């Protein structure tokens, strides 16, 4: 069992942003039932290149994410692969909570009255971290919601599964590029529970073994292989 080189727990309502170099594993662990953590990814070398939900879903003919899937940028490259997953389903079509929807669902709160217990929203968390990194709401795009399952019935109605994520669930990403991650531990917008449902999520970074030709994610679909080829080509041209 490899040792992590870095670890941090994001508490309910919390946020984090930072750059993680390629070739690392980023393992998320739900420290209680019902976790949801909203995630954005940007190419650290060129922040205009970012995670693109439609390109990711349509290339892999899927509407959910699990082991084998890759998280693609809008330039046809793999930002990160999902190399391990104990849950089997992560969401990327629901978006994130706003100040307005947080107040409406859980009751209005503010810092003056609640200090650091005020109920934070994904929208505000992302806005702050985007600006911190030289970006803005212009750069806000659909997020990945790790640990959530929302499926669609035959009429297209979106159904959130409240029993999906159990304590101890893990999902592990492998970075294929240098990535700016922005994370917000705020609820899934479709979670019907009326008391603020966020639970702590632990993040650990470990070193990844080199990607070889037998790699599970590279071979998961031919589309994935071509996205990896686009990514390797990018680094060949950069010279490292």
């Amino acid at each position, binding site marked *: 069992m490899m040792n992590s080189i870095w670890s941090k727990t994001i508490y309910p309502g919390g946020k984090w942003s930072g750059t993680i170099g390629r070739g690392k594993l980023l393992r998320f662990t739900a420290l209680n039932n019902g976790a949801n953590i909203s995630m954005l990814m940007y190419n650290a070398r060129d922040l205009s290149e970012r995670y693109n*939900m439609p390109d990711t*879903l349509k290339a892999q003919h899927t*509407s959910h994410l699990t082991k084998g899937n890759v998280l693609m940028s809008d330039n046809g*490259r793999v930002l990160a692969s999902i190399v391990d997953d104990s849950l089997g*389903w992560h969401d990327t079509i629901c978006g994130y909570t706003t100040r*307005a929807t947080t107040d409406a669902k859980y009751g209005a709160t503010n810092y003056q009255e609640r200090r650091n217990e005020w109920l934070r929203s994904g929208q505000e968390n992302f806005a702050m971290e985007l600006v911190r990194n030289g970006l803005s709401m*212009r750069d806000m795009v659909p997020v990945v919601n790790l640990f959530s399952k929302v499926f*669609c019935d035959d009429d297209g109605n979106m159904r959130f599964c409240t029993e999906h994520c159990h304590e101890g669930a893990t999902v592990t990403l492998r970075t294929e590029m240098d990535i700016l991650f922005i994370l917000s531990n705020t609820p899934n917008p479709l979670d019907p529970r009326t008391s603020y449902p966020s639970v702590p999520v632990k993040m650990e970074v470990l070193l990844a073994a080199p990607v070889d030709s037998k790699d599970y994610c590279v071979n998961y679909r031919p589309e994935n292989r071509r996205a990896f080829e686009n990514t390797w080509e990018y680094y060949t041209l950069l010279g490292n």
Partner: protein
Amino acid sequence: MGAFNRIESPRRIEDAIYDEIIPAGDGWMRELLPGQVLRIVDLDGNQAADTLFYDAENPEDHYSAVATIAGQGNIYLTAGTTLRSESGKELLKIVADTCGRHDTLGGACSAQSNTVRYSHDTLSMHNCRDTFMLQIAKHDGTYTKRDLAPNINFFMNVPVTPDGGLEFADGVSAPGCYVELQSLCRTMVLISNCPQLNNPCNAYNPTPIRLLIWEE
């Protein structure tokens, strides 16, 4: 497949203040005033019209696919759908729809996504992302690549299955089908009439669309 809700428009063509044909592979960018109604007509059937919207008073606030579908709890866009921006602002409402279902999970084609989906040889083929970028380049400098968020594909049918799949189904649109949107504020509209030949989104035959605007 669920029932399709088709609603016709009471508007008459002769009352329109604007009427243009957009050939396949071309783009269009124009601001709508509050109350104005835009109709996009699928002239020959099964043509995808990739469309983005912006709050013209705050162009950083772009159309949000996820705010729109989570806001209505349903992934399909049709008459009655409110199109929302990233901030949650209501930009437009779909007031008529004779096709019955439109997609907002499939995104726009690009040279890069084509190389992933089909083969590296497709890099040189024309695509919607290029059309969007050309329109932006010809505009006044307000918009950049960073403003190209996931879009709507009018007239496209991308069914999502309960077990988490996603399919590209045969088109449900027919010649003359249209969708009509009423702008609720000053809205910038950016359209690419999709040139994609590698999948059936245009029935392998990209065709023109017609755009009409009414003052209300």
